[in-house]
């Protein structure tokens, strides 16, 4: 009781609308000028890293719908990312000579990836737990192997070489990957994409939060907690599960499309199993089911390996007096250790969801 009063006293300021709006605008301003601060302090590569972190954020939010909300363990999620990326690549590159505008491709990618989600979901509805995990894993591998080998007899994906020269998103004739001058300030491609991705990510966060508290989200959570009971309560578990797969897949598809347009190049290399596992780690480490936890987990796991890449050589030099251990391996060793330690200390993730 005392604790509760204290809690209310402490956070009373959160209920004051003025202070809340001040907080929101501070966050908004920080997010808006973040790329400039980063470029000025640690260089432009880090803006690109931030961009990729935002793409991963969309992926992790999509996977969170499948794993976090509906409780369906998916180890092949990267397949939908691949489908989205290749859809974009085929419709906007010299590969088939098609150059569709982005406002047409984004919905197409959304639908195609969602279709693949249903394609995976339909035969696996009866499977539970780890059986489902292994089938989704197999599905991810199947998609990757097809992308890798569909260069003959008919050349569709260009095989292991991948597809090059993908059109960037362009608005009114301005390609967003080029440096543009707006109101006297130079915006590089990485900066413009940062804003674009930020808007997309915020949209995803908004959709996820609204979903979580909707009839749909509650049905998913009921299925996660106890499928039989959910069915007994009149939830159509088959349709709900299919919908979870389709929604998650569509998020991945859009993320993949934006990735293809940003990178300008796709190859099957980017869609290996390890990527699926990384996205899953982001979801679980951050706190499965909690949208903000997932965002936190993504930022950590997308940025931590890059920091380790930068510091693993200097640390060795200062401690051991020379680079003794291959920095790339050391980075991954530290990364593995970090995964284990975080899970040991916080088994339900850094920022777990409140409902249990």
């Amino acid at each position, binding site marked *: 009781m005392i604790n509760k009063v204290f809690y209310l006293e402490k956070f009373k300021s959160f209920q004051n609308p003025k202070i809340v709006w001040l907080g929101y605008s501070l966050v908004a301003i920080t997010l808006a000028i973040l790329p400039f601060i980063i470029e000025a302090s640690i260089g432009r590569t880090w803006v690109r890293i931030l961009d990729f972190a935002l793409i991963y954020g969309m992926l992790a939010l999509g996977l969170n719908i499948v794993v976090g909300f509906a409780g369906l363990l998916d180890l092949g999620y990267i397949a939908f990312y691949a489908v989205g990326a290749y859809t974009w690549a085929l419709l906007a590159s010299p590969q088939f000579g098609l150059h569709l505008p982005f406002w047409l491709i984004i919905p197409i990618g959304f639908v195609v990836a969602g279709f693949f989600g249903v394609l995976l979901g339909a035969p696996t509805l009866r499977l539970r737990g780890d059986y489902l995990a292994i*089938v989704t894993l197999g599905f991810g591998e199947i998609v990757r192997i097809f992308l890798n080998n569909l260069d003959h*007899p008919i050349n569709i994906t260009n095989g292991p070489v991948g597809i090059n020269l993908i059109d960037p998103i362009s608005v009114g004739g301005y390609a967003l990957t080029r440096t543009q001058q707006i109101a006297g300030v130079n915006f590089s491609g990485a900066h413009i994409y940062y804003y674009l991705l930020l808007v997309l990510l915020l949209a995803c966060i908004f959709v996820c939060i609204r979903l979580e508290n909707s009839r749909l989200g509650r049905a998913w959570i009921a299925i996660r907690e106890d499928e039989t009971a959910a069915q007994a309560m009149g939830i159509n578990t088959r349709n709900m599960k299919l919908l979870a797969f389709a929604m998650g897949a569509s998020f991945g598809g859009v993320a993949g499309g934006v990735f293809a347009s940003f990178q300008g190049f796709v190859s099957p290399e980017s869609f290996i199993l390890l990527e699926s596992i990384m996205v*899953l780690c982001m979801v*679980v480490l951050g706190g499965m089911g909690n949208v903000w936890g997932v965002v936190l987990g993504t930022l950590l796991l997308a940025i931590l390996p890059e920091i380790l890449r930068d510091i693993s050589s200097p640390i060795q030099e200062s401690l051991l007096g020379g680079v003794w251990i291959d920095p790339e391996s050391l980075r991954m060793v530290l990364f*593995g250790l970090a995964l284990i330690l975080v*899970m040991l200390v916080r088994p339900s993730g850094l920022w777990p969801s409140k409902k249990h």
Partner: protein
Amino acid sequence: MLGSVYALVALGYTMVYGILGLINFAHGEVVMIGAMVVLTMIGFLSGFPAPLSNGAILLFAVITAILVCSMLAFLIERVAYRPLRNAPRLAPLITAIGMSILLQNIAMIIWGRQYKTFPDLFSTVSYSFGGANITNVQVFIIIISILIMSALLLTINFTRIGRAMRATAESPQIASLMGVNVNYIISLTFVLGAALAAVAGVLVFANYSVAHYSMGFMLGLKAFTAAVLGGIGNMAGAMLGGILLGLIESIGAGYISDFTGGFMGSHYQDVFAFLVLIGVLVLRPTGIMGERVADRT
């Protein structure tokens, strides 16, 4: 042949899964470490002042590998899985993935990035047998795997420890009430699985003559697929699944282009294996020999 190796590795997965309900992603890396330790030991023993016969060298090397892998698995369980036994279901999965990344890169630091070749201890002899070719190494692999698997089945089914393991798999709480030391049994399961993995590592290495720090992951994945195919948690299922998956892969690699009229080449052998897996699971959601078990929540 390949199937019997999958079966050995799959047994490790299925035993751990049967008891803890956990996918031990680090198991494939244990196989890789086994192969690497054998390589190092063979190099070390060949340089011995008193010359040893090739058979003795191999035997010593394999025993060392089994010991190292068993200790490693014991440590993995202690550090990464035991503290999380009552945690949410996906938490140990993440530590398992972390462990896998960790072991792979430690192996890369110790043994380097290059492909290692298996030293020539024995000359390979090829026999022709009703149109099929088989080498003496492959015959050896099949015999060893059959021996080990029978020994394991006998242990599980007819000894005190085996009974304790089966009881723990059934229900850890009740087993502990009946006087079974559950922690000891779980450690033992990991150690046994790792010993099988070490042998499997040597067999794979001997057959393909190459080892690489990343060889464990794909092998582990295939073996896990095999375990699921047979019905995870079921020992006989794991063996059957392993052998089936091996056969499917070889048949797939050989005949897939005939099936599809030349559209799909042998690169699609994994697609074929996974499609068969999906097909089997759709028809029988608990694997070929799996029993319908109640959900663990």
